[in-house]
């Protein structure tokens, strides 16, 4: 049985700010599987129902409709929710977040009627992370006038090197997005037409404001049930929680990592990524079935913006050197290799699928490549694996 508090069968979130926003995919297209598949395989879907408490002593769940359910094994796959900002005007109509299908439907309502964008529509996006930039790309394609406000001095400041941030700022600017950095929003005001203000008296008018300032793991149920929680539900390499009958997987968990190269990680990680959720789910399912499949995969991520395919292998935390293969200043295709003491930690690959797959293997097989070769475009990256 799967219990979810949304009215939809499990769906893919990555297309939400992209193909779904653009109208290229609809509700059905983004379902992970059609509802009929669950029926066919005897999986009961309980949608629109929320678990309000776990009783780990009786092995029961309490639902918001008053029902009580027994379990032998429980998997907490509660994900994460959008971080809300606590600003005056943050609750005004037209101030939106982007995490769920309903969030994007809500955004679309403010863009225009029946999927058509109202001419002259303006959107202000608060937060220049991946969600903010992917949304900016899609809205620009739809003809919306987009401004991105970032608090730091560059976009993607938390996740990439400045070379990569500069690249994305250039591309978005070329595509017509106004990117403003070092902007700390102080409040939002207005009706119908909203105005986003900062402390310096600047203001940005918008028909809608989209806030993308990160997520918070959904750990409250686990915490209330007395499970160990620290920046996510604490799990071991088998995705088992501190309770023998409860496993957990995905964005809501904090798991051990064998990525010794990233010594800053302290041996534990909480990842916000689909591939991680998929891998953890396999491990958790094995544990439920009393099999042992330790989690040992390398993190990777992707982001599509305009005709850019960014694929990221590894985690760059702790890097002391960035090497660029290709031209990040003019073209739309390059790799940023992140190294620490000469050892590869991660690679941001923009329109470089080959280097991405090579980087994944270099990382998992712990192969060291001469830095001069990493940036030498005359060498086929396949050679690095030999």
């Amino acid at each position: 049985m799967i219990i979810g508090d949304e009215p939809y069968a499990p769906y893919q979130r990555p297309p939400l700010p992209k193909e779904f926003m653009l109208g290229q995919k609809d509700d059905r297209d983004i379902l992970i599987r059609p509802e009929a598949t669950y029926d066919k395989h005897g999986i009961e879907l309980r949608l629109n129902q929320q678990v309000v408490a776990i009783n780990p002593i009786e092995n029961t769940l309490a639902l918001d409709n008053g029902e009580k359910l027994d379990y032998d094994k429980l998997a907490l796959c509660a994900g994460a929710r959008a971080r809300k900002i606590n600003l005056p005007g943050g609750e005004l109509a037209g101030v939106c977040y982007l995490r769920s299908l309903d969030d994007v439907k809500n955004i679309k309502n403010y863009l225009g009627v029946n999927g058509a964008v109202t001419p002259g529509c303006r959107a202000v996006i608060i937060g220049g992370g991946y969600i903010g930039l992917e949304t900016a790309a899609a809205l620009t394609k739809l003809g919306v006038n987009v401004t991105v406000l970032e608090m730091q001095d560059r976009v993607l400041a938390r996740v990439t090197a400045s070379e990569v941030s500069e690249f994305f700022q250039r591309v978005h600017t070329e595509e017509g997005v106004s990117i403003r950095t070092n902007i700390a929003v102080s409040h939002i005001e207005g009706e119908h037409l909203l105005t986003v203000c900062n402390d310096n008296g600047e203001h940005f008018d918008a028909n809608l404001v989209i806030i993308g300032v990160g997520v918070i793991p959904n750990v409250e149920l686990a915490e209330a049930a007395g499970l160990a929680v620290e920046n996510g539900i604490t799990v071991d390499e088998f995705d088992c929680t501190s309770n023998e009958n409860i496993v957990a997987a995905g964005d809501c968990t904090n798991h051990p990592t064998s990525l010794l190269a990233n010594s800053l990680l302290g041996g534990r990680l909480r990842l916000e990524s689909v591939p991680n959720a998929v891998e953890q789910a396999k491990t958790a399912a094995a544990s439920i079935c009393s099999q042992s499949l330790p989690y040992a995969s390398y993190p990777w991520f992707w982001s599509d913006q305009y005709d850019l395919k960014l694929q990221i292998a590894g985690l760059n935390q702790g890097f002391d050197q960035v090497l660029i293969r290709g031209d990040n200043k003019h073209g739309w295709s390059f790799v940023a290799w992140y190294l620490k003491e000469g050892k590869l930690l991660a690679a941001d690959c923009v329109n470089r699928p080959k280097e991405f797959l090579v980087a994944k293997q270099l990382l998992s097989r712990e192969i060291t490549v001469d830095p001069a070769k990493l940036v030498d475009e005359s060498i086929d990256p396949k050679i690095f694996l030999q």
Partner: protein
Amino acid sequence: MPIIHYIEADVAVGSTVMQGAVDNMIDGILAECGGSCSCATCHCYVDEAWFDKVGEAGGTEKTMLEMAMEQQPTSRLSCQIEVTEDLDGLVVRLPASQY
């Protein structure tokens, strides 16, 4: 005793070979990226008799396949094969490494 897999699945026109596999809970096609040609976990071998109808990989997919494990001449990423009426009866196989 040898294990023989007989698998047939109905897939809607306009869907992809990958989505058809996921919808039918077929093992061996993970499709981590949900069909955005980003991960190469839906690699398949198109049966030679069908390869002309399915066609060759292009662009990003071709580059991804070059680096995929156990690439063969009829390799494709199944998320990039759109299902059409012409593909009624299509046969694809999966690389052993995906099990």
